[in-house]
Protein backbone atom coordinates (compact mmCIF):
# COMPACT_ATOMS: atom_id res chain seq x y z
CA UNK A 1 0.00 0.00 0.00
CA UNK A 2 2.76 2.41 1.05
CA UNK A 3 4.83 1.49 -1.99
CA UNK A 4 1.84 2.15 -4.26
CA UNK A 5 1.43 5.63 -2.81
CA UNK A 6 5.15 6.29 -3.17
CA UNK A 7 4.89 5.19 -6.79
CA UNK A 8 2.04 7.67 -7.31
CA UNK A 9 4.07 10.48 -5.76
CA UNK A 10 7.07 9.49 -7.83
CA UNK A 11 5.23 9.35 -11.14
CA UNK A 12 3.56 12.73 -10.56
CA UNK A 13 7.01 14.15 -9.74
CA UNK A 14 8.56 12.50 -12.81
CA UNK A 15 5.90 13.95 -15.08
CA UNK A 16 6.54 17.45 -13.73
CA UNK A 17 10.29 17.08 -14.26
CA UNK A 18 9.83 16.00 -17.87
CA UNK A 19 7.34 18.74 -18.63
CA UNK A 20 9.41 21.41 -16.93
CA UNK A 21 12.75 20.68 -18.53
CA UNK A 22 11.18 20.27 -21.96
CA UNK A 23 9.64 23.73 -21.79
CA UNK A 24 12.77 25.83 -21.95
CA UNK A 25 10.74 29.01 -22.27
CA UNK A 26 9.12 28.30 -18.91
CA UNK A 27 12.50 28.02 -17.20
CA UNK A 28 13.56 31.39 -18.58
CA UNK A 29 10.15 33.02 -18.40
CA UNK A 30 9.55 32.46 -14.71
CA UNK A 31 13.04 33.68 -13.86
CA UNK A 32 12.76 36.87 -15.87
CA UNK A 33 10.39 38.80 -13.61
CA UNK A 34 12.27 38.27 -10.33
CA UNK A 35 15.52 38.97 -12.13
CA UNK A 36 14.31 42.33 -13.42
CA UNK A 37 12.90 43.23 -10.02
CA UNK A 38 16.28 42.45 -8.54
CA UNK A 39 18.07 44.50 -11.13
CA UNK A 40 15.82 47.57 -11.12
CA UNK A 41 14.91 47.77 -7.45
CA UNK A 42 18.19 46.44 -6.16
CA UNK A 43 20.38 48.92 -7.94
CA UNK A 44 17.82 51.70 -8.16
CA UNK A 45 17.04 51.89 -4.48
CA UNK A 46 20.40 50.79 -3.13
CA UNK A 47 21.86 54.29 -2.54
CA UNK A 48 18.78 55.80 -0.94
CA UNK A 49 17.64 53.18 1.51
CA UNK A 50 18.67 52.76 5.07
CA UNK A 51 16.28 51.18 7.49
CA UNK A 52 16.48 51.88 11.18
CA UNK A 53 18.05 48.96 12.97
CA UNK A 54 19.65 47.47 9.88
CA UNK A 55 23.30 46.50 10.38
CA UNK A 56 25.82 48.72 8.56
CA UNK A 57 27.35 45.85 6.61
CA UNK A 58 24.06 45.11 4.85
CA UNK A 59 23.00 47.17 1.86
CA UNK A 60 19.65 47.24 0.10
CA UNK A 61 20.59 44.60 -2.46
CA UNK A 62 21.45 42.21 0.36
CA UNK A 63 18.11 43.01 1.95
CA UNK A 64 16.25 42.47 -1.30
CA UNK A 65 17.71 39.16 -2.49
CA UNK A 66 16.11 36.89 0.16
CA UNK A 67 12.81 38.61 -0.52
CA UNK A 68 13.07 38.04 -4.26
CA UNK A 69 13.93 34.39 -3.64
CA UNK A 70 10.79 34.16 -1.51
CA UNK A 71 8.86 35.78 -4.33
CA UNK A 72 10.22 33.31 -6.88
CA UNK A 73 9.16 30.47 -4.62
CA UNK A 74 5.70 32.01 -4.21
CA UNK A 75 5.03 32.50 -7.91
CA UNK A 76 6.40 29.16 -9.03
CA UNK A 77 4.59 27.31 -6.27
CA UNK A 78 1.24 28.97 -6.87
CA UNK A 79 1.65 28.24 -10.55
CA UNK A 80 2.50 24.60 -9.88
CA UNK A 81 -0.55 24.23 -7.66
CA UNK A 82 -2.93 25.96 -10.02
CA UNK A 83 -1.62 23.87 -12.93
CA UNK A 84 -4.32 21.41 -11.81
CA UNK A 85 -6.60 23.77 -13.73
CA UNK A 86 -4.66 23.29 -16.93
CA UNK A 87 -4.88 19.54 -16.51
CA UNK A 88 -8.62 20.05 -16.12
CA UNK A 89 -8.74 22.18 -19.27
CA UNK A 90 -6.74 19.72 -21.36
CA UNK A 91 -8.64 16.72 -20.03
CA UNK A 92 -5.65 15.04 -18.41
CA UNK A 93 -7.12 15.46 -14.93
CA UNK A 94 -9.80 12.91 -15.83
CA UNK A 95 -7.09 10.37 -16.56
CA UNK A 96 -5.70 10.97 -13.07
CA UNK A 97 -9.05 11.09 -11.29
CA UNK A 98 -10.37 7.88 -12.79
CA UNK A 99 -7.33 5.95 -11.55
CA UNK A 100 -7.31 4.15 -8.22
CA UNK A 101 -4.35 6.25 -7.04
CA UNK A 102 -4.99 7.85 -3.65
CA UNK A 103 -5.91 11.52 -3.92
CA UNK A 104 -3.55 12.77 -1.17
CA UNK A 105 -0.70 10.90 -2.86
CA UNK A 106 -1.54 12.66 -6.13
CA UNK A 107 -1.42 16.03 -4.37
CA UNK A 108 1.84 15.14 -2.60
CA UNK A 109 3.33 14.13 -5.95
CA UNK A 110 2.35 17.44 -7.45
CA UNK A 111 3.87 19.22 -4.46
CA UNK A 112 7.09 17.21 -4.82
CA UNK A 113 7.32 18.16 -8.48
CA UNK A 114 6.45 21.81 -7.89
CA UNK A 115 8.86 22.20 -4.98
CA UNK A 116 11.68 20.72 -7.06
CA UNK A 117 11.18 23.09 -9.97
CA UNK A 118 10.64 26.09 -7.68
CA UNK A 119 13.80 25.24 -5.72
CA UNK A 120 15.67 24.97 -8.98
CA UNK A 121 14.50 28.47 -9.93
CA UNK A 122 15.20 29.85 -6.47
CA UNK A 123 18.76 28.57 -6.47
CA UNK A 124 19.39 29.82 -9.97
CA UNK A 125 18.33 33.24 -8.76
CA UNK A 126 20.57 32.99 -5.70
CA UNK A 127 23.53 32.22 -7.94
CA UNK A 128 22.67 35.10 -10.27
CA UNK A 129 22.40 37.46 -7.30
CA UNK A 130 25.90 36.45 -6.16
CA UNK A 131 27.19 37.80 -9.45
CA UNK A 132 25.23 41.01 -8.90
CA UNK A 133 27.04 41.60 -5.63
CA UNK A 134 24.94 39.82 -3.04
CA UNK A 135 27.02 38.49 -0.20
CA UNK A 136 25.81 35.77 2.05
CA UNK A 137 26.62 36.79 5.61
CA UNK A 138 26.20 33.32 7.01
CA UNK A 139 27.27 30.48 4.66
CA UNK A 140 25.71 27.83 6.90
CA UNK A 141 22.50 29.77 6.53
CA UNK A 142 22.11 28.33 3.03
CA UNK A 143 20.97 25.08 4.57
CA UNK A 144 18.41 26.90 6.69
CA UNK A 145 17.31 28.95 3.68
CA UNK A 146 16.80 25.68 1.84
CA UNK A 147 14.34 24.57 4.51
CA UNK A 148 12.46 27.86 4.35
CA UNK A 149 12.25 27.61 0.59
CA UNK A 150 10.83 24.10 0.79
CA UNK A 151 8.24 25.17 3.35
CA UNK A 152 7.15 28.16 1.24
CA UNK A 153 6.90 25.79 -1.73
CA UNK A 154 4.82 23.14 0.04
CA UNK A 155 2.48 25.72 1.56
CA UNK A 156 1.71 27.64 -1.59
CA UNK A 157 1.45 24.62 -3.87
CA UNK A 158 -1.09 23.17 -1.43
CA UNK A 159 -2.87 26.52 -1.48
CA UNK A 160 -2.81 26.57 -5.29
CA UNK A 161 -4.23 23.04 -5.50
CA UNK A 162 -6.99 24.06 -3.10
CA UNK A 163 -7.93 27.06 -5.25
CA UNK A 164 -7.73 25.06 -8.49
CA UNK A 165 -9.96 22.35 -7.02
CA UNK A 166 -12.87 24.73 -6.52
CA UNK A 167 -12.43 26.59 -9.83
CA UNK A 168 -14.22 25.42 -12.96
CA UNK A 169 -11.80 26.57 -15.65
CA UNK A 170 -8.78 28.78 -16.34
CA UNK A 171 -10.95 31.88 -16.79
CA UNK A 172 -10.42 33.06 -13.23
CA UNK A 173 -6.67 32.60 -13.27
CA UNK A 174 -5.72 36.26 -13.71
CA UNK A 175 -8.20 37.19 -11.01
CA UNK A 176 -6.44 34.82 -8.64
CA UNK A 177 -3.09 36.30 -9.57
CA UNK A 178 -4.22 39.87 -8.99
CA UNK A 179 -6.43 39.43 -5.96
CA UNK A 180 -4.48 36.78 -4.09
CA UNK A 181 -0.93 36.26 -5.30
CA UNK A 182 0.10 39.88 -5.75
CA UNK A 183 -1.16 41.04 -2.33
CA UNK A 184 0.61 38.09 -0.71
CA UNK A 185 3.77 39.09 -2.53
CA UNK A 186 3.61 42.85 -1.89
CA UNK A 187 2.58 42.64 1.75
CA UNK A 188 5.22 40.11 2.75
CA UNK A 189 7.99 42.66 3.12
CA UNK A 190 9.93 41.73 0.03
CA UNK A 191 10.92 45.34 -0.70
CA UNK A 192 10.94 46.88 2.78
CA UNK A 193 10.62 45.71 6.35
CA UNK A 194 7.09 45.00 7.49
CA UNK A 195 7.77 47.35 10.41
CA UNK A 196 7.50 50.26 7.97
CA UNK A 197 3.78 49.60 7.54
CA UNK A 198 1.20 51.46 9.64
CA UNK A 199 -0.14 49.22 12.35
CA UNK A 200 -3.38 48.24 10.56
CA UNK A 201 -1.44 47.12 7.48
CA UNK A 202 1.09 45.42 9.70
CA UNK A 203 -1.69 43.18 11.01
CA UNK A 204 -2.52 42.12 7.48
CA UNK A 205 1.17 41.59 6.72
CA UNK A 206 1.48 39.37 9.77
CA UNK A 207 -1.45 37.31 8.53
CA UNK A 208 0.44 36.76 5.28
CA UNK A 209 2.33 33.46 5.51
CA UNK A 210 4.98 34.62 3.06
CA UNK A 211 6.03 37.31 5.57
CA UNK A 212 7.46 34.55 7.75
CA UNK A 213 9.12 32.93 4.77
CA UNK A 214 10.80 36.13 3.62
CA UNK A 215 11.82 37.08 7.15
CA UNK A 216 13.15 33.58 7.74
CA UNK A 217 15.17 33.69 4.53
CA UNK A 218 16.67 37.01 5.61
CA UNK A 219 17.54 35.63 8.98
CA UNK A 220 19.16 32.62 7.37
CA UNK A 221 21.11 34.38 4.62
CA UNK A 222 21.98 37.84 6.00
CA UNK A 223 21.45 37.42 9.74
CA UNK A 224 18.79 40.11 9.80
CA UNK A 225 15.26 39.18 10.79
CA UNK A 226 12.49 40.99 12.60
CA UNK A 227 10.76 37.88 13.85
CA UNK A 228 12.72 35.16 15.61
CA UNK A 229 13.83 32.32 13.35
CA UNK A 230 12.18 29.52 15.35
CA UNK A 231 8.88 31.39 15.30
CA UNK A 232 9.18 31.87 11.53
CA UNK A 233 9.88 28.20 11.17
CA UNK A 234 6.97 27.11 13.34
CA UNK A 235 4.39 29.36 11.70
CA UNK A 236 5.53 28.47 8.20
CA UNK A 237 5.50 24.75 9.01
CA UNK A 238 1.97 25.02 10.36
CA UNK A 239 0.93 26.87 7.22
CA UNK A 240 2.55 24.28 4.96
CA UNK A 241 1.01 21.36 6.83
CA UNK A 242 -2.48 22.82 6.92
CA UNK A 243 -2.35 23.70 3.22
CA UNK A 244 -1.36 20.14 2.31
CA UNK A 245 -4.33 18.83 4.28
CA UNK A 246 -6.69 21.51 2.94
CA UNK A 247 -5.54 21.09 -0.66
CA UNK A 248 -5.79 17.29 -0.54
CA UNK A 249 -9.23 17.51 1.00
CA UNK A 250 -10.63 19.85 -1.62
CA UNK A 251 -8.90 17.94 -4.41
CA UNK A 252 -10.43 14.65 -3.24
CA UNK A 253 -13.87 16.22 -3.24
CA UNK A 254 -13.60 17.79 -6.69
CA UNK A 255 -15.53 16.26 -9.58
CA UNK A 256 -14.40 16.43 -13.18
Amino acid sequence: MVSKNLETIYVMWLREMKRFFRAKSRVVGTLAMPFFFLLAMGFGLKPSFNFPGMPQNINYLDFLVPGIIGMTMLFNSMFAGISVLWDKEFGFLKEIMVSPAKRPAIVLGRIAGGVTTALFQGFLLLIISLFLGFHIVNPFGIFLAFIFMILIGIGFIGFGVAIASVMEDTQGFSLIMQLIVFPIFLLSGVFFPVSNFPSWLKIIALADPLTYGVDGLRGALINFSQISLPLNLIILSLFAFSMVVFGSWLFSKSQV
Partner: protein
Amino acid sequence: MLAIEVKNLTKEFNGLKAVNNVTFEVKQGEIFGLLGPNGAGKTTTVKMLTTLLKPTKGKANVWGYDILTQRDEVRNSIGIVFQEPALDNRLTGYENLDFHARLYGLNKTKREKRIKEVLDLVELQDKAKVLVKNYSGGMQRRLEIARGLMHYPKVLFLDEPTLGLDTQTRRHIWDYVLKLNQKEGTTIILTTHYMEEADFLCQRTAIIDFGKIIVNDTPFNLKNILGGDVLSIEAEPAKEAFNVFQEFSWVKKVSQHNGFIDLTVEQGEKKIPLLMKIDQKEKGFEIKSVNLRKPTLEDVFLHFTGRTIREREASQSEKNKMMMRGRFKR
Protein backbone atom coordinates in the same frame (compact mmCIF):
# COMPACT_ATOMS: atom_id res chain seq x y z
CA MET B 1 -22.19 -11.88 -11.95
CA LEU B 2 -23.07 -9.11 -14.38
CA ALA B 3 -20.33 -6.81 -15.64
CA ILE B 4 -22.50 -3.75 -15.09
CA GLU B 5 -25.79 -3.39 -13.28
CA VAL B 6 -27.53 -0.03 -13.34
CA LYS B 7 -30.72 0.65 -11.41
CA ASN B 8 -32.78 3.84 -11.68
CA LEU B 9 -29.71 5.99 -12.14
CA THR B 10 -30.50 9.72 -12.21
CA LYS B 11 -28.30 12.79 -12.48
CA GLU B 12 -29.65 16.29 -12.17
CA PHE B 13 -27.80 19.49 -13.04
CA ASN B 14 -29.58 22.53 -11.61
CA GLY B 15 -32.89 20.70 -11.63
CA LEU B 16 -32.42 19.46 -15.20
CA LYS B 17 -32.39 15.71 -15.53
CA ALA B 18 -29.41 14.83 -17.73
CA VAL B 19 -29.91 11.16 -16.93
CA ASN B 20 -33.40 10.15 -15.96
CA ASN B 21 -34.09 6.88 -14.16
CA VAL B 22 -31.88 4.73 -16.34
CA THR B 23 -31.79 0.97 -15.82
CA PHE B 24 -29.76 -1.55 -17.79
CA GLU B 25 -27.39 -4.48 -17.51
CA VAL B 26 -24.24 -5.51 -19.33
CA LYS B 27 -23.10 -9.13 -19.38
CA GLN B 28 -19.50 -10.22 -19.04
CA GLY B 29 -17.61 -10.30 -22.32
CA GLU B 30 -20.29 -8.33 -24.11
CA ILE B 31 -19.96 -5.24 -26.29
CA PHE B 32 -22.81 -3.03 -25.19
CA GLY B 33 -23.78 0.24 -26.85
CA LEU B 34 -25.47 3.38 -25.64
CA LEU B 35 -26.80 4.96 -28.80
CA GLY B 36 -28.28 8.42 -28.92
CA PRO B 37 -27.83 12.01 -30.07
CA ASN B 38 -25.44 14.47 -28.41
CA GLY B 39 -26.82 15.66 -25.11
CA ALA B 40 -28.88 12.50 -24.58
CA GLY B 41 -27.02 11.73 -21.34
CA LYS B 42 -24.55 9.12 -22.55
CA THR B 43 -21.39 10.80 -21.28
CA THR B 44 -23.01 11.68 -17.97
CA THR B 45 -23.95 8.03 -17.54
CA VAL B 46 -20.37 6.97 -18.28
CA LYS B 47 -18.97 9.56 -15.89
CA MET B 48 -21.16 8.23 -13.10
CA LEU B 49 -20.21 4.61 -13.80
CA THR B 50 -16.52 5.54 -13.81
CA THR B 51 -16.77 7.38 -10.43
CA LEU B 52 -16.09 10.81 -11.91
CA LEU B 53 -19.57 12.09 -11.04
CA LYS B 54 -21.85 11.22 -8.18
CA PRO B 55 -25.40 10.26 -9.14
CA THR B 56 -28.30 12.26 -7.74
CA LYS B 57 -30.34 9.10 -7.30
CA GLY B 58 -30.10 5.43 -8.09
CA LYS B 59 -27.53 2.68 -7.82
CA ALA B 60 -25.00 0.99 -10.02
CA ASN B 61 -22.48 -1.81 -9.73
CA VAL B 62 -19.48 -2.19 -11.97
CA TRP B 63 -17.83 -5.61 -11.90
CA GLY B 64 -19.79 -6.26 -8.71
CA TYR B 65 -18.55 -3.13 -6.94
CA ASP B 66 -20.79 -0.28 -5.85
CA ILE B 67 -19.88 2.97 -7.63
CA LEU B 68 -20.56 4.98 -4.49
CA THR B 69 -19.10 2.91 -1.68
CA GLN B 70 -16.37 0.89 -3.45
CA ARG B 71 -14.88 3.50 -5.72
CA ASP B 72 -11.30 2.25 -5.53
CA GLU B 73 -12.37 -1.29 -6.48
CA VAL B 74 -14.42 0.10 -9.37
CA ARG B 75 -11.47 2.22 -10.52
CA ASN B 76 -9.22 -0.82 -10.43
CA SER B 77 -11.60 -2.81 -12.61
CA ILE B 78 -12.23 -0.31 -15.37
CA GLY B 79 -10.46 1.39 -18.23
CA ILE B 80 -11.82 4.38 -20.05
CA VAL B 81 -11.30 6.25 -23.29
CA PHE B 82 -12.78 9.70 -22.91
CA GLN B 83 -14.69 11.62 -25.55
CA GLU B 84 -12.27 14.56 -25.44
CA PRO B 85 -8.56 13.77 -25.56
CA ALA B 86 -7.06 13.18 -22.12
CA LEU B 87 -3.39 12.74 -22.98
CA ASP B 88 -0.40 14.73 -21.83
CA ASN B 89 0.78 16.39 -25.06
CA ARG B 90 4.21 17.17 -23.72
CA LEU B 91 4.99 13.52 -23.02
CA THR B 92 5.71 10.87 -25.62
CA GLY B 93 3.29 8.06 -26.34
CA TYR B 94 5.47 5.67 -24.37
CA GLU B 95 5.64 8.04 -21.42
CA ASN B 96 1.87 8.45 -21.36
CA LEU B 97 1.49 4.70 -21.13
CA ASP B 98 4.24 4.44 -18.53
CA PHE B 99 2.59 7.15 -16.42
CA HIS B 100 -0.68 5.26 -16.55
CA ALA B 101 0.88 1.93 -15.65
CA ARG B 102 2.65 3.38 -12.63
CA LEU B 103 -0.53 5.10 -11.49
CA TYR B 104 -2.20 1.69 -11.51
CA GLY B 105 0.70 0.09 -9.66
CA LEU B 106 2.10 -2.21 -12.36
CA ASN B 107 5.67 -3.29 -11.64
CA LYS B 108 8.56 -2.75 -14.05
CA THR B 109 8.51 -6.10 -15.89
CA LYS B 110 4.72 -6.09 -16.25
CA ARG B 111 4.83 -2.49 -17.36
CA GLU B 112 7.34 -2.97 -20.13
CA LYS B 113 5.70 -6.14 -21.41
CA ARG B 114 2.24 -4.61 -21.42
CA ILE B 115 3.27 -1.35 -23.08
CA LYS B 116 4.72 -3.38 -25.93
CA GLU B 117 1.55 -5.49 -26.18
CA VAL B 118 -0.89 -2.58 -26.32
CA LEU B 119 1.29 -0.61 -28.72
CA ASP B 120 1.31 -3.68 -30.96
CA LEU B 121 -2.45 -3.92 -30.78
CA VAL B 122 -3.01 -0.36 -31.98
CA GLU B 123 0.05 -0.41 -34.28
CA LEU B 124 1.85 2.54 -32.75
CA GLN B 125 5.22 0.90 -31.94
CA ASP B 126 7.17 3.15 -34.29
CA LYS B 127 5.59 6.32 -32.86
CA ALA B 128 6.19 5.42 -29.21
CA LYS B 129 9.04 7.88 -28.76
CA VAL B 130 7.27 10.80 -30.43
CA LEU B 131 5.69 13.59 -28.38
CA VAL B 132 1.91 13.24 -28.36
CA LYS B 133 1.42 16.81 -29.57
CA ASN B 134 2.82 15.63 -32.91
CA TYR B 135 0.25 12.81 -33.20
CA SER B 136 -2.72 13.01 -35.57
CA GLY B 137 -6.24 12.80 -34.14
CA GLY B 138 -6.55 9.16 -35.08
CA MET B 139 -3.19 8.27 -33.55
CA GLN B 140 -4.12 10.01 -30.33
CA ARG B 141 -7.34 8.04 -30.14
CA ARG B 142 -5.48 4.79 -30.75
CA LEU B 143 -3.01 5.68 -28.03
CA GLU B 144 -5.88 6.34 -25.66
CA ILE B 145 -7.39 2.97 -26.43
CA ALA B 146 -4.02 1.38 -25.77
CA ARG B 147 -3.78 3.26 -22.50
CA GLY B 148 -7.26 2.23 -21.46
CA LEU B 149 -6.11 -1.38 -21.79
CA MET B 150 -2.78 -1.02 -19.96
CA HIS B 151 -3.89 -2.33 -16.59
CA TYR B 152 -5.94 -5.28 -17.89
CA PRO B 153 -9.34 -3.76 -17.10
CA LYS B 154 -12.33 -6.06 -16.81
CA VAL B 155 -14.62 -3.42 -18.26
CA LEU B 156 -13.57 -0.87 -20.85
CA PHE B 157 -15.62 2.30 -21.39
CA LEU B 158 -15.35 3.94 -24.79
CA ASP B 159 -17.03 7.33 -24.92
CA GLU B 160 -17.62 8.19 -28.60
CA PRO B 161 -14.44 6.36 -29.65
CA THR B 162 -14.54 7.46 -33.30
CA LEU B 163 -15.92 10.99 -32.96
CA GLY B 164 -14.41 13.27 -35.60
CA LEU B 165 -12.31 10.57 -37.25
CA ASP B 166 -12.27 9.79 -40.96
CA THR B 167 -13.92 6.65 -42.28
CA GLN B 168 -10.73 4.68 -42.69
CA THR B 169 -9.46 5.40 -39.18
CA ARG B 170 -12.90 4.59 -37.82
CA ARG B 171 -12.77 1.19 -39.51
CA HIS B 172 -9.39 0.56 -37.92
CA ILE B 173 -10.63 1.46 -34.48
CA TRP B 174 -13.59 -0.86 -34.91
CA ASP B 175 -11.15 -3.65 -35.71
CA TYR B 176 -9.14 -2.95 -32.56
CA VAL B 177 -12.27 -2.93 -30.45
CA LEU B 178 -13.41 -6.28 -31.82
CA LYS B 179 -9.90 -7.70 -31.47
CA LEU B 180 -9.51 -6.80 -27.83
CA ASN B 181 -12.99 -8.01 -27.05
CA GLN B 182 -12.17 -11.37 -28.58
CA LYS B 183 -8.52 -11.71 -27.57
CA GLU B 184 -8.67 -10.38 -24.03
CA GLY B 185 -12.33 -10.99 -23.31
CA THR B 186 -12.75 -7.41 -22.18
CA THR B 187 -16.31 -6.31 -21.57
CA ILE B 188 -16.88 -3.13 -23.53
CA ILE B 189 -19.47 -0.45 -23.09
CA LEU B 190 -19.42 2.22 -25.76
CA THR B 191 -21.42 5.34 -26.39
CA THR B 192 -21.98 6.61 -29.87
CA HIS B 193 -24.27 8.66 -32.03
CA TYR B 194 -23.18 6.77 -35.15
CA MET B 195 -25.78 4.18 -36.08
CA GLU B 196 -23.39 2.08 -38.16
CA GLU B 197 -21.00 1.93 -35.23
CA ALA B 198 -23.54 0.57 -32.79
CA ASP B 199 -24.82 -1.80 -35.45
CA PHE B 200 -21.39 -3.10 -36.41
CA LEU B 201 -19.85 -3.47 -32.95
CA CYS B 202 -22.52 -4.00 -30.34
CA GLN B 203 -24.07 -7.26 -29.32
CA ARG B 204 -26.75 -5.28 -27.54
CA THR B 205 -27.70 -1.62 -27.81
CA ALA B 206 -29.78 0.70 -25.70
CA ILE B 207 -31.24 3.70 -27.48
CA ILE B 208 -31.18 6.73 -25.23
CA ASP B 209 -32.87 10.09 -25.74
CA PHE B 210 -33.47 12.98 -23.35
CA GLY B 211 -31.76 11.04 -20.57
CA LYS B 212 -34.10 8.07 -20.87
CA ILE B 213 -33.57 4.62 -22.30
CA ILE B 214 -36.23 4.09 -24.92
CA VAL B 215 -35.49 0.55 -25.96
CA ASN B 216 -32.76 -2.01 -25.32
CA ASP B 217 -32.07 -5.11 -27.42
CA THR B 218 -29.75 -6.63 -30.02
CA PRO B 219 -29.38 -4.48 -33.15
CA PHE B 220 -30.94 -7.37 -35.10
CA ASN B 221 -34.05 -7.49 -32.92
CA LEU B 222 -34.31 -3.71 -32.87
CA LYS B 223 -34.38 -3.59 -36.63
CA ASN B 224 -36.87 -6.46 -36.71
CA ILE B 225 -39.27 -4.36 -34.67
CA LEU B 226 -39.81 -2.44 -37.88
CA GLY B 227 -41.11 -5.62 -39.50
CA GLY B 228 -38.41 -6.33 -42.07
CA ASP B 229 -36.82 -4.96 -45.23
CA VAL B 230 -38.40 -2.45 -47.55
CA LEU B 231 -38.66 -3.00 -51.31
CA SER B 232 -39.28 0.30 -53.05
CA ILE B 233 -40.79 -0.35 -56.45
CA GLU B 234 -41.45 1.97 -59.33
CA ALA B 235 -44.18 0.52 -61.51
CA GLU B 236 -46.60 1.65 -64.22
CA PRO B 237 -49.48 1.89 -63.91
CA ALA B 238 -48.99 2.01 -60.17
CA LYS B 239 -52.58 1.22 -59.37
CA GLU B 240 -52.55 -2.19 -61.08
CA ALA B 241 -49.23 -3.08 -59.50
CA PHE B 242 -50.42 -2.03 -56.06
CA ASN B 243 -53.39 -4.40 -56.30
CA VAL B 244 -51.23 -7.30 -57.46
CA PHE B 245 -48.63 -6.84 -54.69
CA GLN B 246 -51.37 -6.82 -52.07
CA GLU B 247 -52.27 -10.37 -53.01
CA PHE B 248 -48.83 -11.87 -52.22
CA SER B 249 -48.63 -13.78 -48.94
CA TRP B 250 -44.97 -12.81 -48.41
CA VAL B 251 -45.76 -9.12 -48.41
CA LYS B 252 -46.45 -7.87 -44.90
CA LYS B 253 -47.39 -4.32 -45.70
CA VAL B 254 -47.92 -2.25 -48.84
CA SER B 255 -47.79 1.52 -48.88
CA GLN B 256 -47.52 4.14 -51.58
CA HIS B 257 -45.64 7.43 -51.51
CA ASN B 258 -43.92 9.74 -54.01
CA GLY B 259 -44.86 7.45 -56.84
CA PHE B 260 -43.12 4.49 -55.21
CA ILE B 261 -44.75 1.40 -53.80
CA ASP B 262 -43.09 0.24 -50.57
CA LEU B 263 -43.38 -3.42 -49.66
CA THR B 264 -42.41 -4.49 -46.18
CA VAL B 265 -40.99 -8.00 -46.46
CA GLU B 266 -38.62 -10.37 -44.69
CA GLN B 267 -35.27 -11.07 -46.31
CA GLY B 268 -35.81 -8.65 -49.16
CA GLU B 269 -32.95 -9.97 -51.30
CA LYS B 270 -34.82 -13.29 -51.70
CA LYS B 271 -38.02 -11.55 -52.71
CA ILE B 272 -36.58 -9.70 -55.71
CA PRO B 273 -36.47 -12.94 -57.79
CA LEU B 274 -40.13 -13.53 -56.90
CA LEU B 275 -40.95 -10.11 -58.32
CA MET B 276 -39.16 -11.09 -61.50
CA LYS B 277 -41.38 -14.15 -61.90
CA ILE B 278 -44.52 -12.01 -62.17
CA ASP B 279 -45.94 -12.19 -65.68
CA GLN B 280 -46.05 -8.46 -66.22
CA LYS B 281 -47.81 -8.62 -69.59
CA GLU B 282 -50.63 -10.70 -68.20
CA LYS B 283 -51.09 -8.53 -65.09
CA GLY B 284 -50.99 -5.37 -67.20
CA PHE B 285 -48.17 -3.34 -65.59
CA GLU B 286 -44.46 -2.83 -65.93
CA ILE B 287 -41.82 -2.76 -63.16
CA LYS B 288 -39.36 0.07 -63.86
CA SER B 289 -37.05 -0.22 -60.86
CA VAL B 290 -36.64 -2.10 -57.60
CA ASN B 291 -34.71 -0.79 -54.64
CA LEU B 292 -34.01 -2.91 -51.56
CA ARG B 293 -33.56 -1.03 -48.29
CA LYS B 294 -32.43 -2.78 -45.15
CA PRO B 295 -33.71 -0.99 -42.02
CA THR B 296 -30.98 0.77 -40.01
CA LEU B 297 -30.90 1.75 -36.38
CA GLU B 298 -31.65 5.23 -37.68
CA ASP B 299 -35.06 3.90 -38.76
CA VAL B 300 -35.47 2.38 -35.32
CA PHE B 301 -34.65 5.70 -33.66
CA LEU B 302 -37.08 7.41 -36.00
CA HIS B 303 -39.73 4.82 -35.21
CA PHE B 304 -39.48 5.36 -31.45
CA THR B 305 -38.84 9.11 -31.22
CA GLY B 306 -40.50 10.41 -34.35
CA ARG B 307 -37.26 12.09 -35.47
CA THR B 308 -33.92 11.04 -36.85
CA ILE B 309 -30.82 11.43 -34.72
CA ARG B 310 -29.50 14.11 -37.04
CA GLU B 311 -32.67 16.15 -36.62
CA ARG B 312 -32.44 15.79 -32.86
CA GLU B 313 -28.87 17.00 -32.92
CA ALA B 314 -29.70 19.95 -35.12
CA SER B 315 -32.37 21.08 -32.69
CA GLN B 316 -29.96 20.50 -29.81
CA SER B 317 -27.28 22.73 -31.35
CA GLU B 318 -29.98 25.36 -32.00
CA LYS B 319 -30.76 25.23 -28.29
CA ASN B 320 -27.09 25.59 -27.38
CA LYS B 321 -26.76 28.59 -29.65
CA MET B 322 -29.74 30.20 -27.99
CA MET B 323 -28.17 29.58 -24.60
CA MET B 324 -24.89 31.13 -25.71
CA ARG B 325 -26.71 34.17 -27.04
CA GLY B 326 -28.56 34.51 -23.76
CA ARG B 327 -25.25 34.40 -21.92
CA PHE B 328 -23.72 37.20 -23.94
CA LYS B 329 -26.72 39.42 -23.43
CA ARG B 330 -26.21 39.35 -19.68
